[in-house]
């Protein structure tokens, strides 16, 4: 075992540990959310996950981006099989450990990997052009400034560099009998003397593995974490009709009491249970949302398909469902890091404003458009509930509407007794 193997082992273990540490932090942040039961219907859940996350069935609603994304994703995942060999080589000091074992099949494998790498490379270049030169509008909305903007580009550049390194490494490798499909075409661009080639091959090898380990650790800080969270996010997606909003159980209990003919209206209020959690109606802070809402915020890839389909966003209102997801994640990171210490801020008002929440038509265009079934609408609804039920914060017209519904059973000021007048009037 040489010094380079030892360095490799240290780096490898370090990268895995750091990654695990960050994942653990994310998991504990997600667990700050309220309970919601998504343990039912496992069959349909697996099916949804395989179709939507693995099969990317919703991506192709936009065919160009959808197909390119499938190429990049499939390529990226499959090429990572090659990582197995790289890691074994790195630890043991072997070189292409699978080549003698697989014989002719080895070339076939590498050829497939190389074709995929080329696909990923081309895909990422096109993505980069679409984003920065063609300037697809959804990538340049208000919430896509600073970090979110560079994040997307950093990922594309890393992928392009990784694929280039992989192909160059194969082209420069003189210690293989293989002559691979794509990289053989690169040979002409490389020097011919053995020493330079060896140097290039080693550099690319190190660059590739360090790049992959770096990328792994970049994920938890990035929207790119969706490549992992897309699976649980779709598995736990809402399987009920989109129009079915949750009924708040705390409210049901109170309303039932009011309807209970046996309840004594003059009885003293029951002693509040000192151990009972104070129920807050709706959501003001990230921990008033469900763990699924919080998982969604970490899964969001900031693609903006939700916002580009949102009627409010399209007509210039402040609301952007993508921003709702991004704000939830940003606040969750901050809230989690505070470890229970009040920083005087909250998701509602400091991140998401009343005006944004008020603009939603609850049309479900965002949940339909989201390629991984995320649900910005349920976050919006929880915050609307908080506004009205905890802060009595509603536009005047809505107060009037509520009074009318309460008093005359209709959102307008008509007498309930007149409900059948249409049947007899001209």
């Amino acid at each position, binding site marked *: 075992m040489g010094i380079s193997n030892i360095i490799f082992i240290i780096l490898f273990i370090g990268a895995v540990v750091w990654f695990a540490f960050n994942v653990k932090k994310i998991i504990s942040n997600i667990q700050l959310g309220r309970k919601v039961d998504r343990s039912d219907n496992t069959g349909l859940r697996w099916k949804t996950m395989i179709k939507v996350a693995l099969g990317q069935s919703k991506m192709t*609603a936009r065919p160009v981006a959808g197909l390119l994304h499938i190429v990049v994703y499939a390529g990226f995942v499959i090429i990572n099989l090659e990582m197995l060999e790289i890691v074994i080589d790195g630890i043991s000091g072997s070189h292409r450990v699978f080549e003698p074992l697989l014989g002719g099949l080895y070339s076939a494998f590498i050829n497939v990997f190389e074709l995929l790498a080329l696909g990923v490379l081309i895909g990422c270049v096109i993505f980069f052009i679409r984003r920065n030169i063609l300037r697809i509008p959804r990538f340049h909305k208000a919430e896509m400034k600073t970090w979110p903007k560079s994040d997307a580009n950093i990922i594309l550049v890393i992928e392009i560099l990784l694929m280039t390194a992989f192909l160059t490494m194969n082209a420069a490798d003189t210690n293989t009998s293989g002559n691979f499909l794509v990289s053989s075409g690169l040979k002409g661009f490389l020097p011919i003397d053995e020493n330079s080639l060896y140097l290039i091959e080693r550099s690319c090898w190190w660059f590739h593995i360090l790049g992959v380990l770096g990328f792994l650790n970049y994920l938890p800080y990035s929207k790119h974490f969706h490549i992992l969270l897309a699976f649980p996010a779709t598995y736990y997606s809402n399987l*009920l*009709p*989109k*129009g*079915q*909003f949750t*009924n*708040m159980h705390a*409210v*049901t209990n*109170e*309303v*039932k009491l009011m*309807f209970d003919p046996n309840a004594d209206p003059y009885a003293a209020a029951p002693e509040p249970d000192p151990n009972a959690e104070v129920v807050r109606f*709706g959501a003001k802070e990230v921990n008033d949302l469900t763990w699924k809402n919080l998982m969604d915020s970490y899964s969001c890839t900031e693609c903006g398909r939700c916002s580009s389909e949102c*009627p*409010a966003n*399209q*007509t*210039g*209102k*402040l609301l952007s469902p993508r921003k709702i997801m991004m704000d939830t994640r940003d606040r969750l990171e901050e809230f989690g890091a505070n470890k229970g210490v009040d920083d005087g801020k909250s998701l509602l008002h400091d991140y998401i404003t009343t*005006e944004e929440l*008020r*603009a939603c*038509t*609850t*049309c*479900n*265009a965002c949940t*339909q458009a989201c390629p991984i079934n995320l649900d910005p609408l349920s976050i919006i*609804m929880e915050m*609307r*509930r908080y*506004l009205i*039920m905890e802060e009595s914060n*509603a*536009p005047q*017209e*809505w107060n*009037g*509407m*509520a009074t009318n*519904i*309460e008093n005359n*059973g*209709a*959102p*307008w000021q*008509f007498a*309930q007794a*007149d*409900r*059948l*007048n*249409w*049947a*007899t009037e*001209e």
Partner: protein
Amino acid sequence: MSDIERIKVPTMAEMMAAGEIPEILFWVGCAGSFDDRAKKITKAIVKILHNAGVKFAVLGAEESCTGDPAKRAGNEFNFQMQAMMNIQVLDGYEIKKIVTGCPHCFNTLKNEYPELGGNYEVIHHTQLIQDLIKSEKLTLKGGGGFKGKKITFHDPCYLGRANDVYEAPRSAMEKLDAELVEMKRCKQNGLCCGAGGAQMFKEAEKGDKEINVERTGDAIDTQANIIATGCPFCNTMMTDGVKHFEKEAEVKVMDVAELIASAADL
């Protein structure tokens, strides 16, 4: 529409008193009861029910708002109070099956009432019409005199995306001799009219355009003569949109029920 008076619209209370049980309860909804434009849709639905020989009843003054707009605004108390009251009335009459004239009532009764104790089979009026035509209980006279006309259907969010009902309204209109054209955004991708989420009951937030204008633009792009809907609120929004474009002379906004009632010569 004067012939509506010849149709007796029975209430549940009257039915019960006469010892009769209707096949289906027609849930009219607030817009259908009070909004002048929507009342015409209500009457069209009544004519269809009557003509197809469906034994139906309404709740009349015992009906109350389902609570949908309260719930979407965030006022869960207001909603659940309404739900509980309505469930008491519905269960008092042992209602089994409901047809609604509004996708919002449809969604709320169908999806949100069961957990609160109200379990009914709920359909939207376009689904009922589709069934009546299929089972030949309702026959259209020819194609309804829509020759050379184009109809485009605007999917109400609470019928379409919310409940995956896309085919019923379209298949109900299939027998009309008009050409059905789709807007560039339709079905799952249909754009909201702007009324949902209790927006109908307040001013829109600041923006650079009205949603109903954006949506009516889609409809006008199809060159349709008729914008068909299945929701009284969509109807209002699209009608205002047509006015915005000053196209009242060329483009009419009609409910599927009205188109079918007129084609059946009711």
